[in-house]
C-alpha cells in the first residue's frame, strides 16, 4: 500500500482505503471499467484525437474516481 500499515486507517474498516475513500466491490469495479471502456470507445469513434497515451489512461482513472463519488453523492441527497 502507498502508506505504511501503522498509519493505514483501513485496518479498522476494510471497506475504506488509506484516504477514507470507499473501496469498490468486484461487481462495481467491473461496472465502472465497462462504463469507461464503452464511453471512451464511443467518443473516440467520433473524435479519434482522444485515442492517445494521455487521454486513454486519464479517462479510466477519471471515471473510476469520480463516477462512484458522484453516485454516492446523489444517493445521499436522495
Amino acid at each position: 500500500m502507498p502508506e505504511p500499515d501503522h498509519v493505514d486507517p483501513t485496518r479498522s474498516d476494510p471497506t475504506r482505503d488509506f484516504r477514507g475513500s470507499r473501496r469498490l466491490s468486484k461487481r462495481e469495479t467491473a461496472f465502472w471499467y465497462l462504463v469507461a471502456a464503452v464511453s471512451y470507445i464511443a467518443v473516440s469513434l467520433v473524435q479519434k484525437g482522444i485515442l492517445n497515451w494521455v487521454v486513454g489512461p486519464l479517462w479510466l482513472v477519471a471515471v473510476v474516481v469520480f463516477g462512484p463519488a458522484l453516485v454516492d453523492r446523489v444517493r445521499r441527497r436522495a
Partner: protein
Amino acid sequence: MSWAAHQFELYAVQAHLPKKMKGKVSFFGIFLGDFAPDFFAKFWVYGITINGKRYGASIPEKWHRGFPGMGFTHTVFFGIVLALLLWLWKRNRALTVGFMLGIAAHAITDVNDSVGTMLLFPFTTLNWSMQTWAYAATKSGGKYLDAAAYYSSLGLVMDLFWLVVVLMSWKVLTREYWRTQVVPADARLWARLGKWIPERGLLALYRATFFYGVCRLIAWSLYARVFSHPVINGVKRRGFPMDLSWTGPWWIPGGARSLPNVNPWIVLPAALALLAVIYWALARLWEPMGRRERRPSAPDNPSSPSNPAG
C-alpha cells in the same frame, strides 16, 4: 509498427520477471522504457498539418526506424545508454532495470513489421525485420491509413497474441498483485500519488495502459472494418479489406514500406537471443546494482536530509 501490443507487453514483462526480481522492478520504469522510443520518434512520422501544409518527415519509415533519422531510439543500444544515464542520476535499480526491459521489449516487438528496427545499432545500420505485416505510415495516409492497414493485417493477430499472453497471466491485473508486487517496487511514487488519488484510482492508473490498449484495439478495428469508406482501385468500399497474408495488406498505395534489411529468416532467432542476453545481463547485474544502491555515497554532510542513502 505495433499498436496495442506495446500496451500489453508491459504487463507481460511485469508478469514474467526473473524470480529474484519479482516485486522489485519498477512498473513505471517498464512503462517509461516501453514508451520512450515512440515518444522520441513518432511525433514527426505522421507530422502535423497547419493551413493545409503538412509538416513532418519526408520519408516517415526512415525517420522512425532508419539511420540517419530517429531509428536509433528503437535500439537496444539506445536503451543501454539511457538506462546508464538513469542509473548514474538516480542510483535506482528498480527503475533502471525496468526501463531497460521496457525499451528492449519495444525494440524487439517492432521487428515484426516490414521496416523493423536496427537491432545491432551502432555495429550495423541494417534493419532487422520479419516483415510479418506492412509498415504503412505514409505521408498522404497518415495515422488513419496506418491504423487501417495494421488492423486489417497480421498486426491485429499480434495485438491479440499479446492480449492473450496478458490474460493468461491475469493475476498481474489484480488488486492483490498490485498491492504486493507493484507498489513495493515504487513505494515512494505510489505514496506521493496516494496523497491525491484514492486507492481505486491508483489501481485504475496501474491498469490504465491495459485499458487503453484494449480500447485502442477495439476502436481502430471498428474504424478499419465498419466506419471507414475507402476507395481502393477505384472501388468505394465499406471498411478496408482484411488481408492476413504475410506482409499484408495488399492495398497500401505504393506497397509496404521497407529499409535495407538483413535476411528475414534470421530475425526471430536473433531477436530471441538478444532478449535472452538482455535478461541474462540484467540478472547478473541485479545483485551488484543492489549493493551499489545501498552503499551511501560519501556526502560532505552526512546529516543532510538530501543524502540519497537516507
